[in-house]
């Protein structure tokens, strides 16, 4: 190796433009609320917002991965419903009442295994059978929620099971457990994307699939891997929602979550054509969307208007993405 490389070091970019814009927006929202919204600067408010944003953010992290690899996953909401419906069925079964620890463990294992199978199913259709991601995941989008409703006979299942509910209502260092879980999962996925060959492969795949294949990237396995991770994260989010409500409603759990997750990913800087995986961007995107919604509601503006505002945020985010590309 030559001692004097031709290259000069470019400053390491820690925060890119999209991330910076996002943080600025967040700051503006925060300052605005501190001044205008009553009781904003209270632990209670913070907790409410964190517990609501965590599920969107966790699903958005998975969605970001799938989008980065050039795909899309419409089935996340249905996977949430399925996983959320299975867990109470397990821990409330009569045979497990003697040992709550085992019951909760099994509930997680069964629910997440189901999510994993959903991911395998999506991934297999897309990689081996070459089905378009939007069509392939539409299958579970429709049938997943159906299966969940069949399992629960279409009933709302209520329960009182503190050992399970801790992931939705528990606190750690005065903040909701799911907030910490969200940060932990984001960090873990970030690590996977930036450090492992899988992460590199998935970006290469999203950037140019043919070139990736010709460079020996195990294209099928990487695709399946992204859908499995996405489904698992959706499964976790489904469990959190059930835990928050102490009830599982297969008809409502995760409803429209796919759109929220895609929106958060896009606001966070994911390019729909693939090749970029801003994991913390997705978390930031979810927080911005949540905070805008909260700001409007807390200031007496109706839910319907909040929906329009959400659409507005997406438009602005896409606009910025385009202008950055220039």
């Amino acid at each position, binding site marked *: 190796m030559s001692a004097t490389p031709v290259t000069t070091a470019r400053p390491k970019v820690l925060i890119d433009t999209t991330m910076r814009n996002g943080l600025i927006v967040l700051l503006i929202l925060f300052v605005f609320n501190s001044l205008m919204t009553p009781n904003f600067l209270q632990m209670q408010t913070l907790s409410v917002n964190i517990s609501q944003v965590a599920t969107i953010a966790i699903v958005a992290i998975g969605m970001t991965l799938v989008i980065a690899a050039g795909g899309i996953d419409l089935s996340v909401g249905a996977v949430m419903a399925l996983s959320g419906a299975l867990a109470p069925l397990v821990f409330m079964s009569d045979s497990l009442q003697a040992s709550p620890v085992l019951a909760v463990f099994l509930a997680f294992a069964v629910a997440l295994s189901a999510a994993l199978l959903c991911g395998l199913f999506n991934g297999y259709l897309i990689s081996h059978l070459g089905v378009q991601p939007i069509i392939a995941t539409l299958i579970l989008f429709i049938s997943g929620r159906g299966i969940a409703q069949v399992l629960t006979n279409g009933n709302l299942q209520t329960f009182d099971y503190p050992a399970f509910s801790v992931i939705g209502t528990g606190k750690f260092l005065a903040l909701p457990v799911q907030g910490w879980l969200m940060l932990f999962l984001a960090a873990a996925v970030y690590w996977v994307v930036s450090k492992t060959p899988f992460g*590199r492969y998935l970006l290469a795949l999203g950037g140019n699939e043919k070139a990736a294949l010709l460079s*020996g990237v195990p294209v099928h396995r990487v695709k399946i891997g992204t859908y499995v991770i996405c489904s698992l994260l959706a499964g976790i989010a489904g469990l959190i929602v059930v835990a928050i409500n102490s009830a599982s409603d297969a008809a409502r759990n995760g409803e429209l979550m796919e759109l929220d997750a895609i929106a958060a990913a896009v606001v966070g800087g994911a390019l729909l054509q693939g*090749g970029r995986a801003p994991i913390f961007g997705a978390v930031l995107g979810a927080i911005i969307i949540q905070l805008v919604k909260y700001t409007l509601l807390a200031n007496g503006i109706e839910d319907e208007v909040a929906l329009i505002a959400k659409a507005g945020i997406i438009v602005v985010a896409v606009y910025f993405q385009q202008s950055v590309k220039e």
Partner: protein
Amino acid sequence: MRNIQKSFSGVVALGAVDLDVLPGEVHALIGQNGAGKSTLIKILTGVYKRDDGEVLIDGEVSIIGSPREAQDCGVATIYQELNLVGLRSVTENICLGYEPRRFGCFVDWPKAHRDAREVLMRFGVDIDVREPLNSYSTAIQQLVAIARAVSLDAKLVIMDEPTSSLDEQEVEVLFAVIRGLKRDGVSVLYVSHFLEELYQVCDRVTIMRDGRSVAVREIAHTSRIELIAEMLGRDPGEIESAGMTEFSAGEAVKGEPLVEVSGIATGRQLQNFDMTVHAGEIVGLGGLLGSGRTEVARALFGLDRLSKGGLKWCGEELKSMKPAEAIALGIGYLTEDRKSEGIVPGLSVRENLSLAILPRITKGWCIDRQQEREIVEHFVSALGIKTADIDQPIRELSGGNQQKVLLGRWLAISPKLLLLDEPTRGVDIGAKFEIQAIIRDYVSQGVGVVLISSEFAELVEGADTVVVLQEGHSVRELSNPGVSEDVLLKAIAEPASGVAA
């Protein structure tokens, strides 16, 4: 264009470029890859915004802010990669965005078809303009692109490497069209790496080097050597004394047989092919477009399944394999189309170069960043890749430098066999010599090479053995010394005489 300047993320791409094109003139623009030709064209056509300088059309300063404005100013471009819509009809492609209207809103299709036909007839092309564009050959598609320019009343038509995918006859048709444009008073800015072409159609030439315009010459009074010298910034005499290519065949010492191919077929394109590549040997594949050359490379790399025949690797029979397994054996495949099958545009030079060696530099779960950097920096300096930094996105590099990164990707796997499909296409002369020298260097260390090239000179001078293909059959094997362009041409053109069934 006067004193045009442009830089990307602090790297100066163009510093002080002047370019004058007279009405009715065919003006050539040449320079090495990275000299700034593409950037200049993109400024002229409104794709990029210039940092400084001005563009004058008919003596008036024009502000070209978008490709549409450029078209409206009379500047039309035929890009290297055709930007037409393959699935739509020829007519639609010619008038896209400027359709004749009836009652102000409906497209007047009969008139559109008539107009399209008329424009094409002027070029001596008589085709059904209602058919989808991609049902015609590349040459016709190119003419359609030119027809589109003409139908927009272009004053200046920019042609970027227009002949790179045409055969000789088609090139003649194109030249006739260019001469026709010239007669009609339309100016042509002609960008090409093939210097011979310039003498056939161009009047004057502007030579660019390192983001500057260094010379303007009358083409008729300038020798080839002078042009090359100007492009490289060297002395003409020095070049004349050197060989035309850095390849010098025939001196290689052949090693053990690396790959033995017998009677393989993968489909209609490749029906019966035999070849043996030894370590330290360059085997060239000669043949026309579509004769099955690329398919040989695809078969050896495990991309297409063999329907017949067998492969032996280092004496052992190989069963079906995948690209990843081929790479593990030490086979690298530099593809013909670097944009669609080579680079991952959004990733950095580092990530592109190390893509094929990730399994080898992974420790536990993680990529060993330190080792990755060392390998990448080694190849960046060894191959002379011009990049601001190894973390620069590869899409910002010039074509020649992208090609070197891709070559680096395969050299990094410590290859035993390299499949090189048009390794120097679309690459300027300087980079071409460098790439050829690098390949020769690796061959002398015992690497086997399968070289596919449409440039006969490259095959004749570079390859130790040339296997000639006709319609998916290997028909002849020529070995150096003794191969000349005439011998090769004859072998390619002559009807196959029972050499292969």
